[in-house]
């Protein structure tokens, strides 16, 4: 999908030329981002090299490949990879999806189960641990080829945290727990709130739109836009009897390393474990029981946070885990400065009672996904911003909301956390706004 509009390179003024793209002024309490960050092909190229090649990126969830030989294909950081559970070891292997012979994809189905992966081009065959097992006419090769070294290439680093599998193309990157920093506690909160063990629900949302990927980062953790952009959603909630008076008050928290979360009171129901009219009267008892379970296991305060509080979390640079009216896991990649490819899933407790699962699925669809009552309007907003950038005349986005106070959930501190990390990681590629 493309508007056919060439990315516009904003003409920076002389003042902008002296400033970094992220203009963070704690004294004046003003925070601005130069719009070339969203439009410049140079910035985009630098992001691929300095951010997407140098971060931990989400690959998938272990529950997607429960059995030996189970695999899923994934584009990660713009590269085709696949994740397979090794038949011998039971380990989660993540390989570059390319034959070590002459390049063709070796995994050509989106998902499935297989003991072997055969490149159809010349029939080189690999097992689920990546070992090269079959080469037709092997005796035609002289001694110079070491077939033991021609197994599938593993991605430089692969680690998982509580079932979330991440990969990095950077051999020197810090280990995953160090990288996740404060985000670990919030992943724990989501999973423990779901009873301790979670799975990805079958069915994937894969959609794209014409805006810069960082606008989706901002939007995914933006409390400020909810009331204005999603008016029709709130009207729908009111029409089915939801009490909105509690509002969405809460706070923004810097989780370190560019990760951030907003946590806030929930006007809508939460399958774990806040009843609301959408769920029906019959559900009250079950939801009360879930809530009591959480209190027993985690204590009253933590159970309250799990049940009543929403979390929109950004794991830098491109993973969103939003624990709202349902739990969605969303990752994205920019093939161009003004295009973003999104892939999103629903996360749910394993062995969830069918009645609870159905309520969770139903709750998800009220707001989320390409057919929901809210997500399409977000896409419209972000494309609208991108088109506004093309209009030119204005150089900077303002992201100062809530500076100088303890940031609340509809402030913009969580976005500033992202942008500061972005500026740091981009280094000299983003140190002069006027150079783009």
């Amino acid at each position, binding site marked *: 999908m493309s508007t056919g509009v060439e990315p516009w390179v904003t003409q920076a003024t002389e003042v902008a030329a002296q400033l970094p793209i992220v203009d963070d002024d704690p004294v004046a309490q003003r925070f601005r981002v130069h719009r070339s960050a969203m439009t410049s092909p140079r910035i985009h190229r630098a992001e691929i090299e300095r951010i997407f090649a140098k971060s931990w990126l989400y690959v998938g969830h272990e529950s997607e490949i429960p059995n030996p030989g189970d695999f899923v294909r994934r584009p990660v950081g713009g590269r085709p990879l696949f994740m397979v559970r090794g038949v011998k070891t039971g380990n989660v292997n993540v390989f570059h999806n390319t034959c070590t012979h002459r390049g063709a994809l070796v995994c050509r189905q989106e998902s499935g189960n297989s003991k072997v992966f055969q490149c159809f081009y010349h029939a080189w065959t690999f097992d689920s641990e990546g070992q090269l097992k079959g080469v037709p006419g092997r005796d035609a090769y002289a001694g110079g080829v070491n077939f033991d070294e021609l197994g599938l290439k593993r991605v430089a680093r692969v680690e998982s945290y509580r079932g979330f599998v991440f990969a990095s193309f950077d051999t020197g990157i810090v280990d995953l727990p160090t990288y996740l920093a404060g985000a670990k506690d919030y992943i724990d909160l989501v999973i423990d709130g779901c009873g301790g063990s979670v799975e990805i629900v079958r069915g994937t949302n894969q959609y794209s*739109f014409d805006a810069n990927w960082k606008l989706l980062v901002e939007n995914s953790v933006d409390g400020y836009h909810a009331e204005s952009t999603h008016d029709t959603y709130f*009207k729908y909630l009111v029409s089915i009897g939801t009490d909105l008076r509690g509002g969405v008050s809460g706070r923004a928290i810097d989780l370190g390393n560019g990760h951030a979360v907003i946590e806030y009171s929930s006007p809508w129901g939460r399958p774990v474990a806040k009843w609301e009219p959408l769920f029906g009267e019959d559900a009250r008892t079950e939801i009360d029981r879930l809530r009591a379970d959480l209190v027993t296991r985690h204590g009253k305060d933590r159970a309250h946070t799990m049940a009543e509080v929403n979390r929109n979390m950004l794991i830098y640079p491109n993973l969103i885990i939003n624990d709202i009216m349902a739990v969605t896991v969303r990752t994205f990649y920019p093939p161009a400065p003004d295009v973003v490819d999104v892939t999103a899933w629903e996360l749910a407790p394993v062995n969830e009672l*069918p009645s609870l699962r159905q309520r969770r699925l139903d709750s998800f669809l009220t707001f989320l996904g390409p057919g929901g009552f809210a997500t399409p*309007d977000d*896409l419209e907003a972000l494309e609208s911003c991108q088109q506004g950038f093309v209009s030119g005349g204005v150089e900077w986005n303002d992201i100062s909301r809530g500076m100088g106070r303890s940031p609340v959930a509809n402030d913009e501190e969580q976005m500033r956390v992202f942008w500061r990390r972005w500026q740091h990681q981009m280094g000299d590629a983003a140190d002069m706004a006027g150079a783009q």
Partner: protein
Amino acid sequence: MTAVAAEQQAICRQQVEDFLYAEAALLDAWQLDDWLLLFDEDAKYEVPCNDAVDGDPVQDLMLIDDNYARLAARVERLNSRRAHREYPHSRTNHQVFNVRVHDVSAEELSVTASFTVWRFRAGRTSCYVGRYRYRLRRSDGGFRIAAKRAELDMTDLRSVGDVAIIL
């Protein structure tokens, strides 16, 4: 199949086609309130995910799983000026073909058809392609929709962005 049965089938298919064409015309005209009147109050409107077209809303993630109340809310939303993705509205062209009626004699007809839904908005062209599955009830010489399901053939939504319109 006897000649009588074949004739019955042809007549029935023609009636169903007329009904589906009339439904498509209401959608293309954005007469959504009138469109909603075609549905029974226990009706469902479903769109499964592209990678799980056999998706069951009881256990799988769907793109859309509306009961009548949610469908009415969808119509109300699309009629408002605050459904930003669809204000102003897209121009759409719902095309229906390969209509097949299964179980002609049944009280509730099971119908499948192919569809192409073209969507034009702000210079952008999108095209949804797939298969409809309807359950239609006979009523006063016409039909009522008991279920409408739109299964997409596209492997993903990258080319269309969303499903903010009604398919």
